[in-house]
């Protein structure tokens, strides 16, 4: 089986400081990988380099494209990479406001990606938008409301619908449950888990919340000071951590 994403020796420096260094891994279709670590560990830098939002200094990010097979996305032309960002890739921001157009309706937010790939039939676009709002548990009668009128959890679910409507194969998520109430988090996680399974999505989730990765991720990558210190099956890394930093991270979680 060809990996969906092959990352090789990815390095990003901010001047003398290391953002992330020599990161390599393969992500297979349907796999969900969590990246954990404390603030400043380089996990967001890594995610942004993978998603093409930041230009790394070295390395390769090889994606198995539908048309041409594995292609290094860092060497793709910009139009091709941006097209990937609207079709096969999706990015869920921690702050829904960064991932939504706050000034247009929920329906238009979901429809935008469809229109970006050429949908020109209003009725069809709207039908798909309503369908997706339903899948993220937003009532049909809110389709014409602007995201400003939504709660934080709803905004986040809307962002997810907006991202998944074009049937992407790889989803990048940056702290998708950050800043939400615990009960809202649970609902969102449940939803994400269902969608990931149903659509056979591959995903890379950056979070500092170990409960989130235990629920969503198949495997984990633990980062500290820009370097990957440990990788493995999620429950194995959390239950039998090998690296001192991971042990500290796991033992620091408050038990409820």
């Amino acid at each position, binding site marked *: 089986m060809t990996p969906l994403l092959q990352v090789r020796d990815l390095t990003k420096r901010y001047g003398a400081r290391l953002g992330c260094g020599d990161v390599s891994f393969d992500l*297979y279709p349907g*796999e969900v990988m969590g990246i954990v670590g404390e603030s400043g560990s380089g996990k967001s830098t890594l995610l942004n380099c993978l998603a093409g939002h930041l230009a790394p200094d070295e390395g390769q990010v090889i994606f198995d494209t539908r048309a041409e097979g594995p292609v290094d996305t860092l060497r793709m032309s910009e139009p091709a990479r941006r097209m990937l960002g609207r079709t096969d890739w999706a990015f869920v921001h921690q702050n829904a406001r960064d991932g939504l157009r706050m000034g247009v309706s929920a329906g238009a937010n979901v429809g935008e990606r469809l229109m970006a790939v050429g949908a020109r039939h209003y009725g069809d676009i709207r039908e798909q938008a309503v369908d997706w709002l339903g899948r993220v548990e937003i009532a049909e009668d809110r389709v014409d409301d602007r995201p400003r009128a939504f709660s934080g959890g709803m905004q986040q679910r809307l962002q997810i619908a907006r991202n998944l409507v074009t049937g992407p194969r790889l989803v990048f998520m940056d702290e998708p449950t950050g800043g939400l109430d615990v009960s809202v988090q*649970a*609902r969102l*996680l*449940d939803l994400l*888990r269902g969608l990931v399974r149903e659509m056979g999505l591959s995903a890379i989730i950056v979070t500092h919340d170990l409960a989130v990765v235990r*629920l969503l991720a*198949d*495997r984990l990558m633990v980062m500290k000071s820009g370097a990957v210190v440990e990788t*493995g*099956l*999620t*429950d*194995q890394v959390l*239950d*039998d951590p*090998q*690296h*001192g930093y991971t*042990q*500290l991270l796991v*033992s620091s979680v408050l038990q409820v």
Partner: protein
Amino acid sequence: MEAMIRVSDVSKSFVLHNQGGAVIPVMAGAELSVQPGECVALVGDSGAGKSTLMRMLYGNYLSNGGSICVGGLDVARAEPREILAMRREVLGYVSQFLRVVPRVPTLEVVAEPVLAAGGRREAGEARARDLLARLNVPERLWSLSPTTFSGGEQQRVNIARGFAHDFPAMLLDEPTASLDATNRAVVLELIEEAKARGAAIVGIFHDAEARAQVCDREIDVSRFTPERAA
């Protein structure tokens, strides 16, 4: 006949980096082999390493040496996705505690392993109904999430989930604990049925009678406990 589960010369120690790098060896030279249709009980005092061995078989703990083969896969060296595939298709695990996502109804919780192994939804739900009924979980609860159930009800949901898919190999951690006599009998029946269809089973049973009834052999894991420096 080829063993379904084979453990050879497995060792395990914990290194506590944040406590002065203390190394705690917990297992050395572990050997175990289970044939299809066979049920082997792990015995030994509390802390002897029964759970540790089970967790290593499931890929939940890493081993430091030796090999662990389950259905042809070397668990000690496998990639995460290979271990996940093994857990979906080959090796079932009935733990002592139910760990589920909030809000998912009981019927789905139980049917899920069937779907994960590639079964159809109808087949999974039919199997789930059957098991829940046999384990006397009231039908009015099936559409609710088990998170709010009593401990006994949760345990029965957990067992139903564990037996939903016909795994060729199974790990059972105290499957009869905290069950009344009726349900205990049902669980033992399920184990017998699993053996009859050829499942290789490794279990921890504190319930000596149950153990005597379903297990073919016992392995005393304290044999694998390394000498510890006092």
